[in-house]
């Protein structure tokens, strides 16, 4: 107080001329604005670096070198291959033989042998076997196949593999690249959009060309269903009770403190809890999206409760008082007036909570959803919940750990798909807020 009175010496000069003190204050304000701008610039710079590096590393995952060949399988060959133990290998050998004879007919000017053709192809056997088992009527007629080329050939098309780096590799020889060039000229090997990456399932470590993220997207979807179905009703009910009905005493205080603390608990802790309670105690299946969803529900609940309470608080008391004043019961007040007004905020909080859960890997490690799992689409709704499956971030993590550079690329591609989902969810949250939010 005394400082202020001492500083407020009689003002000299006029309002139109700027004195030294005002200039100083204005300068301080300008500096502050500049700091803010710089901070935003730094943030934007890193965002751009991140986005560019993700896109640059991930975009190649969306194309795949394919071998396009017509192939005829006779009934005897089919029976013969089906009688073996490793049927897929038998089909692969038949296909290689067919491709070789076709190449010889065409009179390519490079020398090659069956081993070289084998090195060019990815794992083709299971695709061929699937096709003929599903369409037995096509046995004996020529069928046009688009089959994934091997990881090194794919890398050659994308510039990941060059003649120089191929020196010590036993998976593809430099001479094979002449054959690849010739085949590319002949239109037999082409680079095409990789639909299998979006719709397919995980594949073995020696088959990056066959790997897709589709099945784990379904795994994530079922997990999110569980999270939504459990955390939204429980979270909203908890918030309404705490906010509107609960008496203010030490017990509710304790609950509030605990909810805030839970929001800050590392997700891996929920994973351990899930392992102990849901799998070891309740005997729910391992690696199941149901358990994953339950664990993520625990993680998401505090987020939803906190945001729901905030949006309930934001509804002005006058609305409650008006409702009570015209004779509504407490419950009618809440459900007819407060909750509808708070709904946009609740939805936003829920979607952001779900987006957070969607990107979570750590708790899934402990309940068996990380590994070689996402192999088959679930056969129905129940099987979607309980059959072993992975989730998008877990699939990305698994791919990133594999030796073949083709999988590393797939991991980046998976990140792009995951980011698209996250962005979509966040945009929906923003639109909902913009559309329905009421201001007082």
């Amino acid at each position: 107080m005394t400082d202020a009175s001492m500083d407020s010496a009689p003002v000299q000069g006029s309002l139109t001329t700027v004195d030294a003190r005002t200039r100083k204050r204005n300068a301080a304000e300008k500096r502050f604005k500049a700091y803010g701008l710089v901070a935003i610039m730094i943030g934007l710079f890193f965002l751009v670096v991140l986005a560019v590096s993700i896109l640059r590393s991930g975009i190649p995952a969306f194309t795949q070198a394919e071998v396009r060949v017509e192939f005829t399988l006779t009934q005897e060959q089919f029976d013969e291959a089906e009688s073996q133990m490793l049927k897929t290998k038998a089909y692969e050998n038949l296909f290689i033989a067919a491709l070789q004879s076709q190449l010889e007919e065409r009179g390519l000017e490079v020398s090659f042998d069956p081993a070289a053709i084998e090195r060019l192809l990815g794992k083709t056997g299971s695709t061929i076997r699937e096709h003929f088992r599903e369409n037995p009527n096509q046995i004996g007629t020529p069928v046009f196949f688009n089959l994934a080329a091997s990881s090194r050939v794919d890398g050659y098309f994308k510039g990941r593999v060059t003649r120089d780096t191929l020196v010590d590799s036993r998976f593809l020889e430099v001479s094979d690249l002449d054959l690849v060039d010739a085949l590319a000229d002949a239109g037999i090997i082409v680079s095409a959009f990789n639909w299998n990456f979006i719709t397919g399932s995980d594949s073995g470590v020696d088959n990056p060309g066959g790997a897709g993220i589709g099945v784990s997207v379904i795994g994530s979807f079922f997990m999110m269903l569980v999270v939504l179905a459990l955390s939204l009703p429980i979270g909203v009910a908890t918030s309404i009770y705490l906010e509107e009905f609960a008496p203010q005493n030490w017990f509710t205080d304790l609950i509030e403190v605990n909810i805030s603390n839970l929001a800050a608990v590392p997700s891996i802790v929920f994973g351990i809890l899930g392992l102990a309670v849901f799998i070891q105690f309740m005997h729910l299946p391992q690696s199941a999206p149901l358990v994953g969803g339950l664990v993520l529900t625990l993680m998401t609940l505090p987020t939803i409760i906190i945001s729901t309470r905030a949006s309930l608080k934001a509804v002005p008391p006058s609305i409650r008082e008006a409702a009570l004043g015209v004779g509504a019961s407490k419950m009618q007040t809440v459900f007819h007036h407060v909750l509808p007004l708070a709904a946009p905020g609740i939805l936003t909080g829920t979607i952001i909570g779900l987006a957070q859960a969607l990107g979570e890997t750590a708790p899934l490690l402990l309940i068996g959803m990380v590994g070689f799992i996402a192999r088959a689409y679930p056969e129905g709704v129940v099987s979607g919940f309980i059959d072993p499956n992975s989730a998008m971030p877990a699939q990305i993590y698994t791919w990133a750990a594999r030796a073949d550079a083709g999988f590393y690329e797939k991991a980046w591609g998976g990140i792009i798909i995951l980011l698209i989902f996250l962005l979509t969810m966040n945009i929906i949250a923003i639109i909902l807020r913009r559309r329905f939010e009421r201001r007082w």
Partner: protein
Amino acid sequence: MSVKITVSALAIAAVSATAAAARDNVQVAGSSTVLPYASIVAEAFGDNTDFPTPVVESGGSSSGLKRFCEGVGENTIDVANASRAIREKEVATCAENGVTDIIEVRIGYDGIVFASQQSGPAFTAFTPTDIFNAIGAKVLKDGQIVDNPHNSWSEFNADLPDAEIAMFIPGTKHGTREVFEEKVLLIGCEETGAMQAMIDGGMSEDDAEDACLDVRQDGKSVDIDGDYTETLARIDANNNGIGVFGLAFYENNTDKLKVATMSGVEPTTASIASGEYPVSRPLFFYVKKAHIGVIPGLKEYAQFFISDDLAGPNGPLANYGLVSDPELAKTQQMVADEKVMGADM
């Protein structure tokens, strides 16, 4: 609202359905070294048989065996992958929890290689002595046991480049660490005479052995607890870095890595199979016999894994980098007979 109620009803239905239905897929967990092979086999098993594809999780040999030994029943795993043999202590834990009949299946051998950046210093030949002198906690210098004073490789071996020591070795939860200690550090310790000097200095033989396996903690040697990809990333970022890898991983990344010989032998599937290359170890998986007949496809999976078509010298596993076992036929017979560990030893 009604949609949400339907969804929660479904979730509840799913929970109750699980309690009744038996698990129909084989559940595998364990070593990250065996994981690639197991995933190749699991994919082929799903593609070639009418059984569902087994679920294969990673996590390391020790954590896999720990889960394996948790007990018998549907909510425990059926198969544990391990890049080392099961320890007696683990067998005892297993027995305590009712897992008494274990089938040990050796699938083949894996070489452990020392590799550095393709464009880095010329690390082309090592001996166990070099590695021990580089990263042992206490080494022999001028007849004295001292805390490791070495900063560069050329300080103790003039043939090696004058480059800073930076080794990335597998962390203790990896089965690979055990082989690394046994076949490199311990031998290096003996060959440099450090072990003898420690014993002469009044240590018991066991204590000296333990001291030999201690690794310096001043940042020149880094434990990698993650996968080989992490080691690769560290080497990518460090021109002088030397990493410990599995042979298969190295062969998949020859464009980035160059390998060093160990005691003059180059690591290849042939030199490992013949036993010439010194740093190799057998890979295993362990099957719970009590689950055979309960979990559909379990025995078939085990037999499929070690069949000639897969684990043989021309199979996909060998193609990926596994050194196939010359005694595969014996293992096949053992699995067919479901012979458990300790049955006739």
